[in-house]
């Protein structure tokens, strides 16, 4: 009885080995069930073990384990070598396109805004916002812009009533933030601004701006330059150079326009930079002491810098988009290019 069972097991091993070696990949799993499964042939042989004398049982059991392991390993090896082909099932023409989902995503300007804000977040600036309909006081007066200044003119500004305009820049949030919080203040403020410019290739009556403000004791013009330089290298790439030119804004002094080396020609001069090798990206400067006084900060104690940039313009520079209206037309074929 014992010898008979062992012979049966060895017969199964021999037969199974041939079968496994010859089986096509797709029938390996069926073969495994047939040989080693719960109702398979190995189990069928072992059903007779109960009829053996107790002392013979371990011997047969050990032989059964050996056969099971041998066949199992052989099956695994065959399956592994046939693996990928088996997963593919019957022959397919894999040059056919795969099935995809619609690709959603952010507007290119939002991507620019996020990227800029993320870099400044790394540099210690938190992200806040402010109202788009602003009082004359916040939009102009507190920022040291007298109401008879050209910037405050009816001609350039949308009015809602005598005292309220659509903000012409994100700078009012400087004043709002400083009134709300004591220093140190480091914030970036993305948001929509409005100017009475008719739509054309380079003007939109509503456009994005990102404001930045850093105020504390001991912040200097050197710190201001270093921070902006660092931002430029992180955003435009480490090889990009920065140039600060004197300029004029009523709410900063010293004021500067910041240029970066042309992203298209690298600074040698081309049509995009009008041959100058530079592209203007922001207006900036040290916060004017009058602004500090207007919001209740001690101008003798605190210094700081502020900057403003147009992410729509930067987006256009980056992707070489020739007309600002493309950004607001929201043609699917345009948006898909950047998603």
């Amino acid at each position: 009885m014992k010898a008979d069972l062992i012979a049966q097991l060895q017969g199964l091993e021999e037969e199974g080995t041939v079968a496994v070696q010859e089986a096509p990949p797709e029938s390996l799993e069926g073969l495994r069930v047939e040989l080693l499964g719960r109702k398979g042939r190995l189990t069928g042989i072992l059903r007779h073990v109960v009829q053996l004398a107790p002392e013979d049982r371990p011997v047969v059991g050990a032989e059964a384990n050996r056969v099971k392991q041998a066949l199992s390993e052989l099956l695994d090896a065959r399956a592994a070598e046939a693996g990928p082909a088996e997963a593919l099932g019957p022959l397919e023409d894999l040059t056919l396109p795969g099935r995809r989902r619609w690709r959603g995503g952010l507007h290119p300007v939002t991507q620019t805004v996020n990227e800029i804000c993320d870099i400044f977040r790394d540099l210690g600036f938190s992200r806040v916002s402010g109202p788009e309909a602003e009082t004359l006081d916040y939009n102009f007066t507190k920022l040291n812009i007298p109401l008879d200044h050209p910037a405050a003119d009816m001609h350039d500004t949308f009015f809602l009533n005598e005292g309220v305009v659509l903000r012409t820049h994100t700078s009012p949030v400087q004043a709002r933030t400083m009134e709300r919080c004591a220093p140190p203040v480091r914030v970036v403020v993305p948001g929509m601004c409005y100017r009475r410019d008719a739509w054309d290739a380079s003007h939109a009556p509503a456009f994005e701006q990102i404001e930045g403000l850093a105020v504390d004791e001991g912040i200097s013009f050197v710190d201001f330059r270093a921070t902006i330089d660092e931002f430029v290298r992180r955003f435009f790439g480490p090889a990009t150079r920065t140039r600060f030119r004197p300029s004029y804004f009523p709410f900063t002094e010293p004021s500067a326009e910041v240029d970066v080396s042309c992203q298209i020609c690298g600074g040698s001069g081309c049509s995009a930079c009008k041959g100058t090798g530079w592209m203007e990206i922001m207006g900036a400067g040290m916060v004017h002491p009058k602004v500090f006084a207007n919001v209740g900060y001690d101008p003798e104690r605190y210094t700081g810098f502020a900057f403003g940039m147009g992410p729509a313009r930067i987006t256009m520079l980056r992707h070489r988009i020739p007309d600002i209206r493309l950004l607001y037309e929201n043609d699917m074929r345009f948006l898909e290019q950047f998603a």
Partner: protein
Amino acid sequence: MAERLAMLGAPVDEIVELGAELGDVVIARVDDVRQHPNADRLRVCTVDTGTGATLQVVCGAPNVQAGGFYPFAPVGATLPGDVQIRKAKLRGEASEGMLCSARELGLGRDHAGLLALTGEWEPGARFVDALELDDARLVVDVTPNRPDLLSHVGVAREVAPGGVAEITAAPFDGASVCPQPARAEWQGEVAGIRVAIDDLDGCPRYMAAVIRGARVGPSPEWVATRLRVIGLRPINNVVDATNYVLHELGQPLHAFDLARLQGGEVHIRRAGDGETLRTLDGVERTLVAQDLVIADAERPIALAGVMGGADSEVSETTTELLIECARFDPRSVRRAARRLALSTDASYRFERGVDPEGLPRALNSVVDLIVALAGGTPEAALDVGADARDQTTVVLNPERVNRTLGVSLDPGEIAGYLRPLGFETARQDSVLRVQVPSFRSDVETEIDLVEEIARRRGYDTFVGSLPAFRPSAVPTEPMVALQARLHALLGRWGFLEARTAGFAPAAPERVPLRNPLSAEESSLRDALLPGLLRRLEHNLAHAVRDVRLYEIGTVFLPDSQGQAPREDVHLAAVFTGARDPAHWTSPGEAWTVWDLKGLLEDLASELGGQGVPEGERLQVGGKDGAVLGGGGPLPARGGAVWGLEVTIAPQNAQVDAAAYHPLPIFPAVDRDLALLIPDGVTAAEVDSAIRTAAGPMLEALFPFDLFQGAGIPQGNRSVAWRLRFRTAERTLTDAEVDAAINRTLKTLEDRFGIRRR
């Protein structure tokens, strides 16, 4: 030079190479002019171009004269704008070349006639050489705080390496022929003319000089050329002299024909309402009471600081001149210039402020130049008005300079930066007392001087490493994270973000703009969907049929309490067309209401609320039960268009951290029930009844099949529900689950008449 100007804060907008495209142009003398036989307006000229033989040229300009010298473009020449000159026949007369106007040469806007050269010239000489036009025009962008840069001397002061001390050159140096002006407080006399400032606020200072016996005529070519290269049109020697000095020194000047003044009086006064003035451009202007005018005894003769009057204009018959050199209130000039939409070289400078100490020099210069060009005798000069401007002195603390700029300059270095710009400095203890030159009215306080020091030292010299900083006391707003989650959600759904301007056509519930640009954009939007729908239609109009757009943006709602409207942030989406990109494995499906509802449910869970169907509309409820928005089918051309709009409120931004639920240890038991549900009983009612009846062992419940039609009794639908039972403590027995199922079936039958199929 352009680079240097840019780094000083006066960037060059444009460099115009003046002679670059005029290499082919020569000077020609017109020997003979006769009427074109077949055209009233054309003339046939015989032209000497220095080649030995004369040419015949047809010319339409009214000012062509025999014996005159003009720029000439021969056949084969190329003019600015790539204009090619060819041999032509004009109404039967041959024309071998072209006599040119200033505009045709790119030297100005003047196209009324040929550019007539005064004096004798050599025919055939190269035009650019003869007129020394081999030069470039730099167009400088001057910021509004720096009116002192609106002149050649002003720019020279900035760029001269040694600063103001180097600036001496003026064409007429030495003693001026202009008489010493008599001083007067508010009124005085000049050569028998009474000059009175009736409004000292509007005109703090008025200088005048009288010249008699001048001969008005064309300016010599050196003056005409200098004016042309900066884009001005030479008019006559007197007017040209005033323009010349204006651009040289930045002080606007005006010459009146003294003979046309009535009553021997000049008043600087406000206009009477309804008074009129015909200005030099020939337009009859009606004045208002605020307007500051120069008037004679009877009527206004000039709009102060903006434009002179046509009636007192200097003409070829003029011999007696009253020269005005004044300072006007910037606001008055700005108001008048804006109201009349009339910006002139003079108004531009007065609006920004002229050098109060610069008047005497400008008057001397212009009188000298007029006498040199037009002859005549300066008879007298007058200086009326309070000349009480104290020199501005600013106390500058070097510590302030160093703290703001992040450098360590000693007082000597600071003075060294300021002196070339015209600032006088004196040490006083630890500070500097700085005297501001009169032409720098923009410098009033210490920080203005800090900027001057930084500018003179060079912004690019302030180099340092990234500073250590204290973290911001202001936290990032929670809205930022909420919006990021919503953007991610819509992105997963395959939607593209749109950005639209925040305007809408007028409607009673919208906040109107006082000064809109167009009717389409005359109010602020109170919702995003209408704008997005227009964007969707734009896409459909361009044959893009699969549209999935969303926007997160501000909407404006009238607020009766506040001065400003209320601002809310909304999210809206529109979608139409195919649910998935076309693929060969399936025919493709359109978006359905179930996609809309699913998206609303996803949004609701991000916003901390839940999606609830209510009537025809699908709405999103917030945490506190308020309705945050909803969606539905939209009216649009073509196929089904779906839209939704919800409010994103900051209070919804706080999403509680999810608490961990232990993963199940024991197996679940699934039972499926196919139920015949009579019409009128909703899925929500069935759902609620099953949950109650099945009890706490019911872990999950959802419908997985819905069928109506063959085999289903009329007035019923068959809905198959899957009920999943499980407890955390043990494996459930069949008997327990059977009991729950039986309870459920009984409840459904009793309450709704629902039976198993």
